[in-house]
């Protein structure tokens, strides 16, 4: 539905004879008493939703203070009351009227999607409501009457439903409002926390610098300095403290505590661990053979004293270890068995096999 600006649009469809609806303009004058804004800068225009004819406050008071009266516009025979007048929210009175009508329709047709069995039903309902609204806003006289009647009929028929939905709508609104508030509050707190953190960091930096200056100033008094240093180290954790000097003193500082971390202490108490294993649980002592230091081969002898090999750090022991490893690699792996037995291989069989291999390996061990 287009909302063309200007009153002409409104007059064309729903105007009464002679009742042109002028736009409220700052420079306008009151169509009733011809008072100009120029003469009375505080002039305010009011309208009545009965006919949307605007007039100044003075006129409203003058005409309607003594009870209901006819609209002063020529040809408009509506009876207006003082109570019904309000100032227009929209400059375009056609829009003002449409909004008023829609508000009215919405308060009656306030079903939600959950009230319908299928989406299609809901869409049909929406279509019906929109048609009705259009008739009310832009329809001809007869159409408007019909729509009005329909609206009243619906209101009568569905009174409990409407009341219930209205309540639910209010609750939902309240919830949204509360959620938004909570979100804002959270964001605000995050911001405050971040700012505080920044400030603390700055403060710590300043304190640190002061401490350094202090200790430099009182450099002569060794005892005092030592004391101060101790206190500082306890509460100020800085990268500087991690430097060589402080941690050299045996037992004076737990070096591990120098790094800043949040939840470390808690976690540590939760899961005590065994002693540190530098090898991480791996071990590569070959099970089927032993590498002796004296292992050699006539072909290798000339490299043993070759200058290039010795000086470069080439290790013949590593070579013999690799040769042994490669010689034994793949032994004890039987593709046939793996194919046929697969995972079903029993533990006993495996150990038996391993023992056999170990025995042969021992025999093959070149001594």
């Amino acid at each position: 539905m287009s909302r063309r600006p200007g009153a002409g649009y409104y007059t064309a469809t729903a105007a009464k004879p002679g009742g042109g609806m002028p736009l409220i303009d700052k420079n306008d004058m009151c169509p009733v008493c011809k008072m100009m804004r120029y003469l009375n800068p505080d002039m305010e225009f009011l309208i009545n939703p009965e006919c949307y004819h605007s007039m100044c406050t003075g006129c409203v008071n003058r005409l309607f203070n003594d009870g209901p009266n006819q609209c002063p516009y020529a040809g408009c025979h509506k009876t207006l009351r003082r109570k019904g007048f309000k100032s227009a929210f929209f400059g375009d009175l056609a829009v003002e009227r449409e909004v008023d009508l829609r508000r009215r329709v919405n308060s009656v047709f306030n079903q939600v999607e959950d009230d319908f069995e299928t989406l299609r039903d809901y869409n049909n309902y929406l279509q019906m409501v929109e048609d009705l609204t259009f008739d009310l806003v832009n329809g001809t006289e007869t159409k408007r009457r019909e729509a009005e009647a329909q609206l009243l009929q619906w209101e009568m028929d569905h009174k409990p439903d409407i009341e219930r939905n209205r309540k639910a709508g209010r609750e939902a609104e309240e919830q949204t409002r509360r959620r938004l508030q909570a979100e804002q509050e959270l964001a605000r707190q995050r911001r405050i926390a971040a700012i505080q953190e920044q400030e603390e960091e700055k403060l710590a930096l300043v304190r640190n610098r002061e401490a350094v200056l202090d200790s430099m100033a009182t450099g002569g008094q060794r005892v005092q300095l030592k004391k101060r240093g101790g206190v500082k180290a306890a509460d100020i954790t800085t990268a500087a403290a991690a430097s060589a000097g402080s941690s050299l003193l045996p037992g004076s500082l737990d070096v591990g505590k120098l790094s800043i971390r949040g939840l470390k202490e808690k976690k540590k108490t939760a899961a005590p661990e065994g002693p540190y294993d530098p090898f991480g649980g791996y071990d590569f002592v070959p099970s089927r053979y032993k590498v002796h230091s004296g292992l050699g081969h006539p072909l290798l002898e000339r490299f043993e004293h070759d200058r290039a090999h010795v000086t470069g750090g080439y290790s013949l022991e590593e070579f013999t270890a690799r040769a042994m490893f490669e010689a034994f690699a793949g032994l004890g792996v039987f593709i046939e068995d793996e194919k046929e037995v697969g995972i079903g291989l029993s533990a006993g069989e495996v150990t038996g096999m391993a023992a056999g291999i170990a025995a042969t390996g021992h025999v093959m061990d070149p001594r």
Partner: protein
Amino acid sequence: MGASPLVAYPTDALRQHDPFKRQPLSTNTSANGTPLLPGPGRAQQAPKSLDNLEQMNEDEKRKYVKGKKLGEGTYANVYLGHSRSDPTFKVAIKKIKVQKEYQDGLPPDAVRELKYLKELHHPNIISLISVFSSKDQNLNLVLELLPLGDLEMLIRDVERVSYGAADIKAWMGMLTRAVWFCHDNFVLHRDIKPNNLLIAADGEVKLADFGLARSFADPGHKMTSNVITRWYRPPELLFGARHYSGAVDIWSVGMVFAELIIRNPYLPGNTEVEQISLICRQIGTPTEENWPGVTQLKEYTVPSQVFPVQKKDAYMARFGSVGVEGVDLLAKTLILNPKNRITARQMLEHKWWHMDPKPTRKEDLPRKSGSEADEKAANDLKRRAGQVGEEPDRGSRVARKLDFGAAR
């Protein structure tokens, strides 16, 4: 049995795409004149097995979904990816670029990486999950995703990351285990440096980039001396030794150790000559006394001023924060003569690991900052007061129904 046209026809059609050169089907005799079995049986088999390979590759490829590009290197692009069947299983897909020099085959660094990663399975070594080739014969390595950056980032970020001796010990433990595992499986890594030490989501440090790795050479077999990034290169390689051992990696480990402590590269030489002079000045000049035969090495050149080998006290002043035992271990990794240098196994048997402080648990290790919480706070700081978060939930993003009641 005559060749069924139904079978023979598709075989011919397939042969058009066959990258392997095979004998034409029409040759019905082999070299020594024995008539070959004609017909569908033979002709069918070869392309079918090839099809199987292609099918396997296709299946493997379909298991992963390639996502956004994470980084671009000279020889590979790295993409984020995830498993198709389980989208929470994230991987990194390293797509090897086709290189001009190696158009006829795979680039050697790709071969090396593939060859060794396929064999080495250790918690501190990046694991290779799968390999497939994509269009244009591009090789794709599916690697485990290590999302928390590398050690170099932590070392350099002095302002935001602070760590202590316990953390250094934990990291060194993981690095040494990885190197020990490589060496015990006869693999030289040859490019150990902080930015090849990647950090997994749980804080575990993993050795990556096996592009320069090789297995221990046989005696008499020359290896190139032009490996390992310069700052981490040991003196024997700088002097051009062609027969070396795992000791080259140990030197690099020592350099990483020193860098972790001082949070700066220990010996950052701009040229190889400068690197040698830095080693001489900081550690000591290699001479016949401390390293018999060193003067015979091909590229042996040292500054004329001879520096004596550093004593423990000198290291203590600079690296004292890891304690006496830590300095002892560091000094042993920086012994000039590779024959006397400590091995990875001996490193792990060192007393330092059992000293106080205990190594930090991997979950508690410092990580790169810029976590989600920080970002959120940063965003909050950027906003004006009274505004709320950009997208708290759907409710506030959807346009609400015009509320005419509120207009009043």
